């Protein structure tokens, strides 16, 4: 599988290239947006790792938007801490995921695998009729949820949110996306609805963050992400 790395820092390009090659990927590298667009067109990589901030030419967001005009190649954006607005912009521009610098190669590899898995699976129908994550099992056919074997009752809206998140494991669902899917597009701004419902769902799922027992992860200022299923 071929991956294109776009970053204006030569050292980072070098490290990522070496790391990803070590995991067995073929790697291309581009130092700016123009080069990146050309390479995607000519070499058809199967995934793009794109830095949001590029010092020359179009920046990462712009490259992402232009790519989405004609390509469905999965894109993982690289951003820095505390840059929530840009992350939302990246998702709006069509990015599949983002990763905050600094990160470990393990983390990047996991994201790459998850994004590729979803890209392969997506236009197809639901993966399984039962989603399992730790002690949690969601039976999509019978709308039954059990935690450690005990059945948990959910209201229809709570179940819809949980199902939406759980059927997209590892994928960031923005608040407006959840609101639109569950309540309808006219509710896209009511982010506090999601907060209150997700809080309820978490209690029913018996999450224990202090022991890192969690099914729904926060993406600050962006949305939620169901834990990635191996």
């Amino acid at each position, binding site marked *: 599988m071929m991956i294109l790395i776009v970053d204006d820092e030569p050292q980072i390009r070098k490290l990522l290239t070496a790391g990803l090659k070590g995991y067995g990927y073929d790697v291309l590298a581009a130092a700016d947006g123009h080069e990146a667009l050309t390479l995607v067109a000519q070499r058809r990589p199967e995934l793009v790792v794109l830095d949001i901030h590029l010092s020359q030419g179009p920046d990462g967001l712009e490259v992402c938007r232009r790519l989405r005009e004609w390509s469905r190649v999965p894109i993982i954006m690289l951003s820095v*801490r*505390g840059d*929530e*607005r840009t992350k939302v912009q990246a998702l709006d521009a069509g990015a599949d995921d983002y990763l905050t610098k*600094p990160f*470990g190669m393990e983390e990047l590899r996991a994201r790459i695998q998850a994004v590729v898995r979803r890209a392969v699976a997506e236009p197809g129908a639901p993966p399984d009729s039962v989603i399992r994550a730790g002690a949690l099992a969601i039976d999509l056919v019978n709308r039954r949820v059990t935690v450690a074997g005990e059945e948990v009752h959910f209201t229809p809206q709570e179940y819809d949110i949980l199902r939406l998140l759980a059927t997209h494991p590892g994928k960031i669902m923005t608040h407006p996306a959840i609101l639109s899917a569950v309540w309808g597009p006219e509710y896209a701004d009511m*982010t*506090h*609805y999601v*907060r*209150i419902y*997700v*809080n309820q769902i*978490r*209690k029913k799922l018996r*999450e224990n*963050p*202090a*022991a*890192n027992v*969690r099914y729904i992860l*926060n993406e*600050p*200022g962006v949305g939620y992400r169901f834990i990635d299923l191996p």
Partner: protein
Amino acid sequence: MTATLRPAASPDRRAALLRAAGEYLAAAALVVATTLALWPLRDRLTIANESLLYMLVTLIVAVRFRTGPSVLAALLSFFAFNYFLVRPYYTLAVEDTRELLDLLVFLTAAVIAGRLTDYARHQAEAAGLNARQQDILYRLTSALNPLTDVDAIRAELRRVAVEELGAVEVEFLPMPPTAPTEHHPAADVVFVLLQAGEAIYGTLRASFLRAPSTSAHRLLIACAGQAALALQRVDLTAQAQRSRALGEADRLKTALLRAVSHDLRTPITIIKTSAANLGDVDLAARLSAEEKGDMVQAIEASADALDRLVGNLLDMSRLQAGAVVLNEDWNSVEEIAGDVAAGVYRREGTERIRLDFPDDLPLVRCDFGLLRQALGNLVDNALRHEPEGQRVVIRGRAEAGLVRLEVVNHGPTIPAEERERIMEPFYQSRDGRSVMGGVGLGLAIAHGIAAVHGGALAVADTPGGGATFIIRLPQTEGAP
């Protein structure tokens, strides 16, 4: 000493002349009236009776109208008395030289009484004038007291010069005058130095239509002196503030340098040494896999520490510069606490936090990322002092109009004298305990983040020992 503060204009002078003429006429009329009254009785009264009556009239005139009219009254009395009432009538012949004594007594008494009256009157006028000047000065001082602005102080002095002292034009020159310029050709210009002690705060240039009286001039100088004192007070306050700010900046710089030299150098040294060891072919061949793994882990931990440190330094400078843009939304503080707790578990590999949140805690409008940072800093700090085997508690409670987030540890209690200082940037407790990446910025940042949300960070004792840090966040109107 002049009776008026404003110089008398010519219509005033004419009125004064008219008034004086009236006084002389009144004195003469009184003497004539007395003479007419005594005329029919001149054969029945003794000379002593009559002369005493004239004396009384003269004294009345003296008390009422001062020296001039009373001397006139004395002279007229003597002649009228002599001509009409003393035998032989209708002559001024003085039969007896003793009568010359009468004349002398009349004149002397009139002059003495007149002078006394004049003196008393001047005293009264001077006292009145003094009181008015004191009043002006007092009101100026009271008006200047609360002022902290140079322009406002000047405006107040200008107002007094124009309204109370009759200046037609007031101007402030930055420094003592060298070559006075004439703005108002017919004006009398007065320059007064605004001086307080050694310091000179410019010059007041006041133009008058007529040269001000000595007392007015003195009052102007006194007022300028008060204004100069006020200007000096403002100047000294500003100087004190500047030096305080400089001192604070200096203290921060020193603390930053000390922090940087230690907390930045340590991880850099670890990274550098580990990388060099791993890169040395001969050495690497002799290292066990475990030793190599330790070095790699040390590099990663050091890099994480540096990342946290740089993040904290950036946050601190953004908070201090007021450059934080809040990405506010309705957030569940329980969610934020959950993120912090999960992060601690991943880092430590064991459960060291206990979460305590009621089911009905309202949402709070805040920046998720910033609040997580603040809470994370408080938790990191609490864990540093938490006894082995115990858990730091993150607790959320609703209060009237606000939501309270508490981070409770069970370690040593913070001495009262350190309570205030621990929130200052780069402050480290006296036992010097500081873990890598913590340069004493954590609490200062948490404090700053609480503040930009309109909230506050406080510290209290944990019952049974330890410190409880409390973030209070206001519950904004329209909470869902």
